[in-house]
């Protein structure tokens, strides 16, 4: 069920009504029923994977919990046992994830390289929310391993944690200690929550339906046929792709959080206005935050603290003097993390390249930091310098844009082609000579995209630097609030429904 469908809204309304009508102590059961129904509506076989992950991590959690309670005398044995449990559970689940997600792409890659069908493709379905619930439950296992909290004893409650329906489509990846309590506790109906939910929902639909879906039409048409485009058109299409990606992803998260909010549940935010990032590291702290923090907590830190790495660090410091020696081990781990993030995006060489691109830039930046500081001092630039701040934002945007070239290219090698076209055959006039009209949307649609994006950016700027859009709006007179509300509803209805994909009824007459 798509987050933007009428069916989804109907589903949410019915679930909400039931949720607040039944006795509060059964509310979590209602949520579980909704979640399982939601999953089953999407397809029946996929739920087996969800059950598998849920059960393996549930029992692993229980076992780890027992271990945590055992006598400290046998600490060494217990530690080994616990590690084994985590290892086996993680391998099983990531194994499934890798198999389902990467078998066919890898098979294609190998077959294409060898020009023979060495590995056959499999008819695999990718279960809804697969990587989200696996990451979420592995995080849970590791937390229990670290004895951060006790494992959940009730398998149904735990199932609700892995299957909570709003976050099945696009995440975010939540933590048990924050989400669990919210899910299982009793919630009184609150107008505040409903209002916040509706507002967030409208924002999400605005981003997704009005902006992203329109931009997508151009992006698919232009980049799907990138060899035919001139550089300027390609660049515009790529900028539209960045807009599309952000609006679609963050809009989806807005809808997810909005729905959760209406149930009285607060989900972590996944985006923090990434357009205002001042560096690539900053960008990754603002973009897909829950994935980044998962990586930090469950990959970056454990790896940095692991014995081999500590040893390696000592070795490096001994042999490479100065700051570089200190930074190098950290850079190595950073590099590996971004490499994994790259692969997480999909099973294609281009995503590995994407990981490299981020890894290389961030490690280089780390290594060159002392040099940059010196340059800044010489040029008399402080961090308060506004021009420098703008420069940082622009620079980061360009770096991100280049990264998007890598992920959006049809194949890895196409990236170079696209880059070549962008630089060698720029031909700016093509943006204005009607070429852009051949991509399936009209001038009105372009205006909608531009105005929509500007409105979104203004709101984000107010949130970033000011008191917040919401606060400002709430202070306005009722009539003004109502007018703005009507405009918003109309905009979403009219521009959301009338997207670029409308096919006029077929006029048969032309045939004779």
């Amino acid at each position: 069920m798509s987050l933007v469908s009428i069916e989804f809204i109907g589903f949410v309304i019915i679930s909400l009504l039931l949720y607040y009508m039944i006795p509060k102590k059964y509310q979590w059961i209602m949520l579980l029923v909704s979640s399982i129904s939601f999953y089953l509506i999407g397809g029946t076989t996929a739920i087996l994977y969800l059950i598998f992950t849920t059960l393996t991590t549930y029992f692993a959690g229980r076992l780890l919990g027992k271990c945590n309670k055992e006598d400290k005398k046998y600490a060494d044995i217990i530690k080994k046992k616990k590690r084994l449990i985590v290892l086996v559970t993680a391998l099983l689940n990531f194994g499934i994830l890798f198999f389902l997600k990467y078998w066919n792409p890898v098979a294609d890659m190998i077959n294409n390289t060898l020009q023979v069908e060495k590995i056959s493709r499999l008819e695999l379905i990718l279960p809804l929310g697969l990587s989200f619930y696996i990451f979420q439950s592995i995080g849970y296992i590791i937390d229990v391993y670290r004895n951060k909290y006790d494992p959940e004893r009730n398998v149904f409650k735990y199932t609700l944690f892995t299957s909570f329906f709003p976050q099945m489509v696009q995440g975010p990846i939540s933590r048990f200690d924050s989400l669990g309590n919210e899910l299982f506790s009793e919630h009184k109906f609150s107008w505040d929550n409903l209002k916040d939910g509706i507002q967030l929902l409208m924002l999400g639909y605005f981003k997704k339906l009005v902006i992203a879906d329109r931009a997508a039409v151009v992006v698919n048409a232009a980049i799907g046929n990138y060899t035919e485009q001139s550089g300027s058109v390609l660049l515009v299409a790529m900028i539209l792709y960045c807009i599309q990606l952000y609006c679609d992803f963050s809009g989806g998260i807005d809808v997810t959080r909005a729905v959760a909010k209406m149930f009285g549940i607060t989900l972590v935010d996944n985006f923090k206005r990434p357009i205002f990032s001042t560096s690539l590291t900053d960008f990754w702290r603002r973009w897909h935050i829950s994935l980044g923090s998962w990586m930090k907590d469950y990959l970056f830190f454990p790896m940095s603290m692991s014995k081999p790495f500590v040893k390696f660090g000592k070795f490096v410091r001994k042999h490479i003097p100065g700051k570089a020696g200190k930074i190098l081990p950290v850079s190595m781990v950073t590099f590996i993390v971004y490499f994994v993030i790259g692969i997480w995006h999909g099973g294609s060489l281009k995503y590995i390249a994407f990981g490299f691109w981020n890894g290389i830039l961030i490690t280089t930046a780390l290594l060159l930091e002392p040099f940059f500081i010196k340059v800044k001092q010489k040029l008399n630039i402080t961090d308060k310098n506004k021009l420098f701040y703008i420069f940082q934002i622009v620079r980061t945007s360009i770096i991100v844009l280049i990264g998007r070239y890598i992920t959006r290219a049809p194949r890895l090698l196409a990236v170079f082609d696209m880059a070549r076209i962008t630089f060698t055959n720029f031909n700016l006039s093509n943006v204005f000579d009607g070429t852009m009209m051949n991509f399936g949307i009209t001038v009105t649609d372009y205006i909608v995209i531009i105005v929509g994006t500007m409105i979104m950016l203004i709101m984000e700027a107010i949130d970033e630097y000011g008191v917040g859009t919401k606060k400002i709006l709430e202070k306005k007179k009722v009539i003004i609030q109502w007018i703005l509300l009507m405009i918003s509803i109309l905009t979403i209805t009219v521009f959301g429904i009338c997207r670029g994909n409308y096919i006029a009824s077929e006029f048969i007459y032309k045939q004779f």
Partner: protein
Amino acid sequence: MTSKKWCIMFFASVILVVIMYAMFNVLVDPFGVFGDKIFDWYSYNMTNNPRVAKTAYLDKHYNEYDSYIIGCSSTSSFPTEDLNKYFDAKFYNLIMYGADMLDVEKTSEYIIDNYNVKNLILNVYITNGYKYDEEEDNLTRNLHAKVGGENPISFYGRYAFLDMQYSLAKIKSKREDTYLTKPSDVFDVSSGAYDKKVRDVEPIGNLEKYLEAYPVFKNYPQESIELTAIDKTTESINKIKQKCDENGINLIVVASPVYEKYLEYFPKDDVKEFYTKLAQVTPFWDFTTSIVSREPRYFYDETHFRNAVGTMMIGKIAGSDDVYIPEDFGTYVTLENVSEHVETLWTIENEEEYTKQVPIIMCHNIVENPTEDSEISPERFEEQIKRLSDEGYIAVLMQDLVDYVEKGKELPEKPICITFDDGYLSNYEIAYPILKKYNMKATIFVIGSTVGCQTNYKNTEHPITPHFTIEQAKEMVESGIISIQSHTYDMHQWAPYEDAEQPRENILKFENETEIEYMDALKKDISKIKEVVEQSGDELIAVAYPSGKSETLTNVVLNANDIKATLTIEKENNTIIKGLPQSLYCLNRFNMYEALTADEMIKLIEGD
């Protein structure tokens, strides 16, 4: 504002938007189910879904009709004027594109139950044998709730909460609407048929050019289709038949022509079974195959024949003898002859000729010592006429071509048309005697406003080459040698001599002129030239375009004003086709000039 108040405001606003949304669709009404009060544009609504919009239209206008013809898209090619003429009735064409027999059955039942019906013509197409009830799009292909029996709430609800782009498209199309048929409004509201005013003036002649323009007939695709719905379809027809009998309605069932190669799609036994079972239900007129099926120029595509063929069919059914009907066209199939008839469907034996190559030559002024391309000396002219006569050419008039096309009246073996433009005095003084001498007929296209101008260009000081008078014209017409026709009354002005800011040098629409203004101007001009032609004792049937230029709208207006032939100055031959009036539009002409010897002329006109 409290959150509670805000939420209530939100829900109220949503309800308001929903109501506004529905109101918008109801008012614009792109399918015409809510009365289309604002636009009253049923040709558009019918294009979106003829089933729904026609029911809505007829519910308001059924008093204007007493007979109906019903069926899938080919039904549109039965001109209602012809039906009205022969049946002395007021027909409405209930063509519903893509109609299956269930649509036809339900709609027939509805009109019989609710309207006054004298005649019902049922057009059964061979495709009705393989689809009885298609899974249909429920906006553009479904029946009206009143006809199909759907729950009205779901029916009207669906059109009220329609994707509003249908409504926006209607508004947009309205802004771009023109007099000419556009893909968005293809129906003629009052007759119910497709508006064919453009198709009916589409010039057709040479076969190769036609195949070029209609590539579907070249490399005809091969397919195989089994007729799996014969029983259901004939059962459906039976129900209609019963209902007509009960209500004393004259039911005529017609099986329409198919393009020959299309028939090969269907297994022979299936077709035989279909027609046999049909004959068991009702006698019917079968036009499926004949010499017409062989000729792509009678078709738009493999299943859609032109209105000209519809005229032939109606003529045949009504037993008319003033339209061309091929020998083997149409059989009245009954239980007695069906078994014999179905065997003959795959053999077309008729070899009759129905096309003719007619060269047309064009002259202007005849002068001693010609200096221009449009001038020719008396000697050269006589040489050419003599040569034509010697070669066995028989000169014919425009009316002869019209009779050939409309009535199938034969032309001489080697016909030729001799034509003069403008109406110079030399035509009367020099050409007329020579033509008489060789007994060669000719048509002179006069410019009405300059008839009789001897010295001055119209009422100006400017000099003019002398033009013959109306009396002289009359004398020539009376002789039977000459026909006077139109080169427009005053749409071939000589710009340097005109005071008007924008002189009309030809018959085309000015760019800054509206369609209405242009059509008015053209109609006025036609009525004036008609008067001149009638003064000469002739009847206006042909127009030679000034400078040979024309556009679609010109032809549409000319056709609507009974102009049967039009002539250009393209130097090519002509093929005219029996039963196909369009073949007389935009006829080509070879210019005769001084340097052209008689030998060269013969070579020119005998080429393709």
